[in-house]
């Protein structure tokens, strides 16, 4: 077969395989992310089938996948939702950070990783998967539950925190001194605040520039603008992901709805290639030795997430069963843990890949299972009905 034929056949088989895995995951009531990771480990370097021809394409597509993931993350929440979560649930956000970041950071240092990689591992354990959690709440019919606003607010605050954490991480990974790191943080905070304020006052103008009757026009303008900003942000040293996130934040709520509809399928396709590319870059043989460490970290940070959800729900006056539901719902880690790990691996900290992969594999599966399981168990904590 010639090169083009080989590329197309490989990609075709890959996407068909992903579709089957997605089907299987849905059937089991789980997120497809761990299945995609496992499949990507199975193929490629050190695996059973080498994806030699399509690897260069996949790694380029993976970059676009990260950009689209972060763009849709920025579109997910309006500035109003961010501010109202910040007002009502800021303490929960801090508890989330203080309970879930240190275990990853300390584990990283104990594993002998350099502090920059440990910082990334802290981020991996800190951020829950808003994709998995939001979907889970819908599937389990918990959207109307009283603890749900607290859970969603924690996710919103994590996403906002990502906008600040990613540039810090990127600066740290670049290996610059503490002065540059502080500069990076100031720049990131300034950019996020500026974009949020500008979005409230002038976002509709941006919406008007981008909107058109023609779906094709909207898609081209939106993707074009996002890639441009992401590229400039990368060139400026604050990471493409942050640039894309800011574009998503700046778009007005009225336009965001249409943008989400149009971008959805494109995001799904490229994000899947991102997970594949991440899995491909990890050698499955390296995961086995770090699996005990990943398991220990998963157990600890599952407990700390339960404590986070417990605290956030209790602030809303939720009873014990609801606090347990909220806590277990937050356990799942997924796409953003992989994004963070991917940044560190790309910066040359390849030791982080196997730990992060093992960790996400465990919790992306365990989180949804645990929160399903906790529902009948937690019913025991209910007061005896008064008759």
């Amino acid at each position, binding site marked *: 077969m010639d090169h083009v034929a080989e590329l197309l056949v490989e990609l075709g088989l890959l996407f068909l395989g992903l579709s089957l895995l997605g089907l299987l995951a849905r059937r089991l009531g789980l997120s497809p992310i761990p299945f995609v990771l496992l499949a990507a480990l199975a193929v490629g370097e050190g695996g059973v089938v080498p994806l030699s021809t399509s690897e260069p394409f996949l790694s380029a597509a993976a970059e676009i996948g990260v950009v689209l993931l972060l763009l849709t993350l920025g579109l997910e929440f309006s500035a109003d939702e961010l501010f109202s979560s910040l007002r009502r649930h800021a303490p929960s956000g801090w508890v989330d950070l203080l309970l879930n970041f240190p275990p990853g950071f300390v584990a990283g240092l104990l594993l002998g990783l350099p502090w920059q990689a440990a910082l990334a591992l802290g981020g991996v354990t800190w951020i829950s998967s808003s994709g998995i959690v939001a979907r889970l709440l819908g599937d389990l019919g918990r959207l*109307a539950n009283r603890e749900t606003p607290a859970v969603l607010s924690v996710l919103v605050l994590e996403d906002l925190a990502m906008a600040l954490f990613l540039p810090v991480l990127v600066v740290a990974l670049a290996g610059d001194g503490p002065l540059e790191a502080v500069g990076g943080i100031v720049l990131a905070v300034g950019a996020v605040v500026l974009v949020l304020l500008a979005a409230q006052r002038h976002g509709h103008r941006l919406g008007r520039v981008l909107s058109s*009757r023609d779906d094709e026009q909207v898609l081209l303008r939106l993707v074009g603008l996002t890639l441009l900003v992401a590229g400039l942000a990368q060139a400026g040293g604050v990471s493409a992901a942050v640039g894309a996130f800011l574009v998503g934040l700046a778009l007005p709520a009225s336009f965001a709805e249409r943008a989400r509809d149009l971008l959805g399928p494109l995001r799904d396709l490229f994000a899947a290639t991102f997970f594949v590319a991440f899995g491909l870059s990890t050698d499955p043989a390296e995961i086995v030795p770090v699996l005990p460490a990943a398991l220990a970290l998963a157990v600890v940070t599952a407990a700390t997430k339960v404590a986070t959800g417990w605290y956030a729900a209790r602030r809303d006056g939720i009873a014990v069963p609801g606090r347990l539901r909220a806590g277990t719902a937050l356990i799942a880690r997924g796409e953003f843990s992989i994004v963070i790990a991917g940044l560190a691996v790309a910066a040359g900290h390849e030791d982080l890949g196997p730990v992060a992969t093992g960790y996400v594999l465990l919790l992306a599966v365990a989180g949804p299972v645990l929160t399903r399981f906790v529902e009948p168990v937690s019913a025991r904590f209910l007061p005896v009905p008064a008759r």
Partner: protein
Amino acid sequence: MPGMDLEETLLPGVGVRYELEVDSGQLLGIVVPREGGAEISVYDRRDPDRARGVFRLSPEQADAVAEVLGAPRLTQRFADLSKEVPGLESARIPVRPGSPFDGKALGDTRARTLTGCSIVAIVRDADVVPSPGPEDPLHAGDVLVAIGSATGLEQLERRLSGQG
């Protein structure tokens, strides 16, 4: 609405939840997701934080239920109401060329969900579509007759022109 306690809670990234304690004593929960439709649920008596018996309605079904519950009465009384109820106003809002809803269905505006306004008629040149349904198409040049609060009507106007 006076004498009623309809509690509204923002669900970031999902939509809005409404809670209402009905006369028979149960708590009724309605989640209106951003992408349309509705989830109607009753809360567990033993664990009042937990929704049970969730009904999931597609956007069309939600509109059908809304129609059954309120819309016809509203249109009937429209003329009287806007005189009698302080704070309720009517407006004629044009769909201008370039509006994001040009060529879309009326239901796509989600006017009632987002602005609380009811669109009681579409005026197209000399024709009038009274009590339009969610599937009725909108075109540039149409004029929507809507009733709602003054702020709701302003929101609707902004939304129709693609700024809201």
